[in-house]
Structure formats: C-alpha cells, structure tokens
C-alpha cells in the first residue's frame, strides 16, 4: 500500500506492508512522524484522512479524545486497506542521522522474576540485535492478548540481544492479568516494534543529570544510569535519582542502586521517596549508600535539589500525575523546557 503524508513543510511517500500500522511504516523508513506513546493513549499521532480506506484496530482508544472530526485517526492504531493520502498538520522532517530507526522484530521471554508483590522483571531475547538509546521503549505484544504496550528498557547495551523490562501489575490490565496469572510465560514468543521515545540521554549533553521517577517509570532511568556509568559520566557531572513508591514493600533495585553508588562514587546520589509511610529504620540501615525520605517524589526532589537546579537536564517518568507535578515543580524553579525530557503516555 502506498501512503502519502502531506505535512506542513513537505509531502512524504512510503510503502506500508499489509497489516502494518501507518505510524510504524513511516517511522521504519526514517520519517519523523509525530508520536509519543505509540500505543493509542496520547493522541499525538493524529492525522486526517484525505483519501483511501483505513481499518482502525482500536476504535475505543483513549487517544481518540483529541480527534475533532470523523476523518481524523490515530496513525499508531490504523492500517491502510487501500493507498492512503493523509494530512498531518505539523512540520515532519526525516530523522536525524545517527538516531535509531525503529523496526518490527520478534523475540521470546527468556526469564521472569518477581521484584515485589506486584512488579515483575522480564528479560526478552530478541531474534536480531537491536540498537536503542538510553531512555527509549519498545512496543511489545503477545498472540494471546490484543494490541501492543510500550515498555521501557532497563538495560543499555550496543547491539542488544536481550531487552530487560519491569512491569507493574495493573488492576484491569489485560496483558498484566496474562503476565501475573501465575502461569510461567518462559519461552513465549513476543512481537516487538522499536525503539521509540524522545526522552533520550547522551553523555555529550554535558549537564548534571536529574531523574525523577514514580513506580515502574524507574525502568528508563536505569537505562540512562547504565549509559552514564559506561561513560564514567559522574566523574564530570553530578547525578541525582529520585525514585518514588508508596511504601517500603513497593521498592526494588536497591542492590543495583548500591552497586551503582559504589561504581560511580560521590557524583551519584540516589533517593527513595516513600509517599505513604516513614522509611522503616531496617531499610535505612540495610542500604547506607541510599538516602530515604518521606513524601511525594517531586516534593522530595524539590527539597533535596534546592539551589542545584541551575545546570540540570531532567528526565521524568511514571504515572502522568507524578510527571505533571514534577514538570510544574521544575518550570517554577526556572529549569528551561528544553532541559526537561519525558514521553507522555496519556
């Protein structure tokens, strides 16, 4: 199928394979179509159909709330049935040289491990190596469950053959129910599309690193820390990580944070913020290299970063209200918008 996207600055032409989402086809050809969640919730990838027929894989997608007419659709959910001409009211360039162009792939679940009562660590072995930037995510799907979900990589490796994720059990999540059902999912084939996401970290940024993550938003932060560690970044710039969870039983990665603190030295500070209780003294005593505090993660970050926000680049991840609260806090502390990075999932 031929797809023509009329953008504000120019027209892009590309081929879409049968069944392939229009957004995926364009991105895989290096066209920087607008998107954020790429999974139907944010509405950023909206386009207007000028001609041709499309099938919508998810007519109830929450991201459709931002559509204004029957002609508009989400490129991340729609597949072309005929040649399609669509309009995107934005400037659409080709991706920068050197960026990781996403593509479709596959793999299998290599291991799973419960990190807390409701958080699972999952390793996926990919059929082909994947290049990604620290802070990026992939879309992952399994045959048994409809649709794909965005999961951030925890690791950072060149030519990665293994992708590591953390997934939190959600009350009404279909994929979550499938994963946490108690049945071993070892060996299950998965389909992948990625890498995706704009909240990427490069050592050449040369600024003090600030990461504020709520819950499983910590995944992308771990990838960023891994990249920074490999580059010895914290010998030149400070790093402050704030990890917010509700209670002591919800926290994980403490051994890894301790290892990172030893490897990176004084330059790196890790603070765990508990919103619902005072940090138990047993926890504080067991992890002397980690700081514990009580409060919402953005408030704790504000307290500890007072006077030290002048040269930061901030990475935010987690539940949308937590990300919004952190954005507000940073903007009101005069951190400029170009130094605040996150991918919106709502």
């Amino acid at each position, binding site marked *: 199928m031929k797809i023509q996207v*009329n953008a504000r600055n120019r*027209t892009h032409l590309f081929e879409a394979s049968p069944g392939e989402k229009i957004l995926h086809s364009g991105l895989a050809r290096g066209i920087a179509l607008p998107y954020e969640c790429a999974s139907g919730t944010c509405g950023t990838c909206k386009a207007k159909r000028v001609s041709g027929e499309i099938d919508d894989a998810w007519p109830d997608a929450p991201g459709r709330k931002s559509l204004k007419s029957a002609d508009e659709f989400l490129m991340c959910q729609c597949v072309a049935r005929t040649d399609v001409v669509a309009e995107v009211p934005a400037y659409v360039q080709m991706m920068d040289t050197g960026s990781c162009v996403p593509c479709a792939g596959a793999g299998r679940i290599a291991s799973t491990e419960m990190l807390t009562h409701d958080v699972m660590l999952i390793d996926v072995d990919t059929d082909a190596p994947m290049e990604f930037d620290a802070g990026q995510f992939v879309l992952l799907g399994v045959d048994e469950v409809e649709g794909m979900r965005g999961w951030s990589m925890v690791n950072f490796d060149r030519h990665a053959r293994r992708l590591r994720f953390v997934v939190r059990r959600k009350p009404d999540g279909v994929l979550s129910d499938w994963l946490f059902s108690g049945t071993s999912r070892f060996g299950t084939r998965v389909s992948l599309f990625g890498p995706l996401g704009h909240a990427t970290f490069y050592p050449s940024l040369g600024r003090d690193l600030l990461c504020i993550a709520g819950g499983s938003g910590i995944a992308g932060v771990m990838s960023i820390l891994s990249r920074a560690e490999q580059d010895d970044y914290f010998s030149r710039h400070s790093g402050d990580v704030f990890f917010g969870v509700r209670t002591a039983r919800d926290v994980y990665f403490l051994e890894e944070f301790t290892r990172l603190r030893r490897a990176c030295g004084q330059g790196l500070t890790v603070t765990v913020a508990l919103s619902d209780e005072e940090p138990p003294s047993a926890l504080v005593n067991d992890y002397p290299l980690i700081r514990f505090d009580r409060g919402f993660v953005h408030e704790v970050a504000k307290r500890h970063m007072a006077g030290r926000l002048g040269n930061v680049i901030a990475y935010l991840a987690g539940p949308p209200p937590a990300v919004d609260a952190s954005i507000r806090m940073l903007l009101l502390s005069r951190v400029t918008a170009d130094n605040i990075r996150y991918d919106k999932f709502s």
Partner: protein
Amino acid sequence: MQKQRICSASDVPDNGMKSYDIEGRKILVVNAGECFHAYQGLCPHQDVCLDEGYFDGQLLTCHQHLWQWDIRTGDAVGLAEAPLEKYEVEVSEGEIFVVQSSALKAVDMLKDVSPASLERLEGLARREQLPAGTVIYEVDDPADDLYVLESGRVEFTIGRDDRTRLAGFMLRKGEVFGWAALLEQHPRRIARAVCHEDSVLLRLNGEAMLEALEADPTSGLMVMRRLATLVARHTTGPQNS
C-alpha cells in the same frame, strides 16, 4: 473580528489566565499584574487549551509538550516552533476588549522592524480576499510580490504536468510565502500556490518592500537576517522522499 468585549477585568485573577469562546475561536486572557494580554487560546502545536498550562509571570507554557512563549510579545521561547497570535487589548471601565492585530505584526521575519517602518509596510500591503481554488501563482511566474497569510489555507505544489507533488501548506496567520520576491536574480516562482480554502492575504511588492527597508537599514538588516535563516531552513531540510 471587530473590537469585542471578552470579560470583566475582575474575572481574571492576578497572575492567572482564562479562556473564552468568542465567535467560534478560543481567546486566552492573561492577567500579568500590571497589564492584560490576549492570545489565541489553543496551542499552535496540537490545539491543546493553553489555560490548562502554566504561567509564571513571564512565560506561558503549554503543559502538553512544554512549548513556551514570552507573555509580553507571544514570541516563541525554547522548544516552541511557532509564536502565539496576539490580540490588542483595551481595558475600559473595568471591561476587557480585544481587537485582532494586523497579520504583519505576526510575521516572524518582521519581528524586529521599527514601528515606523512597519507602518510603512502596512501602507504597501494590499489585502486580498480570495475564494477557495484561486491560483495565487504558477511555476515560472515572475516573483514580484510577497504574501502574508491572514486567514485560510494555501497549498504549494512543485513539479510540472502530471509529475507534481504537494510541497506543504500554510494555515497560520502571519506565515509568509513568495519570499523570493525579496531575492535578487531569483525572479521566478518554483512552486504553484493555491488557496485551498477561502483565504485572506496581504500582498506586498518585493521591490517596494526593499526600498522601505533601505530607508531604515537597522530594520532592514534584521529582516535580512531572518530571511537568511528562512532560506537556510528551506535549503538544508532533506527534500527527497
């Protein structure tokens, strides 16, 4: 839009903002303490309501993707890729009125032109109302005039005969096209420009514009710098697909 009452000054709290639906468009009123400002109410990026964003007394921020604007001018700051359309505000007996400002004031290329020269340029501008389907110019037509979009939508096509391709479109007030009229030895159009909807344009003769700018070299230099940036953006962007 004629002069239009929006609200009472007391409706918008200090350092606060509110948006109002006026004749089918959303207008944002911002109370910056010592004065009021009025802008388009929707973010030019993705039509997000700006009253849900942040205002810190100097910068207005859209909460979706952190595009920001200088509250005094509506100029794009930081990540923002487009300015905000500004309305002239009048406060009279506690009531706030707005008037649509001239499209020339929204032209990025003319941002630093002195008020006197801008007035002279206003004098050169002919306002044209064109119905949908009007061909503004064809490929190879002489590039005499420069156009500023006031409202509507203009599409560009490159190529000839049956090998043509859409090469973008303009829909924001203050967008400029046909700027080849300001270049020497570049007297021909390279694209076809067509009104895709009923559109209102300001049309300025290139030579007359250059003459006006020669009389005010400081303003002229600023225009040429911004024009150079515009040309560079057009020539460095990848063109093949």
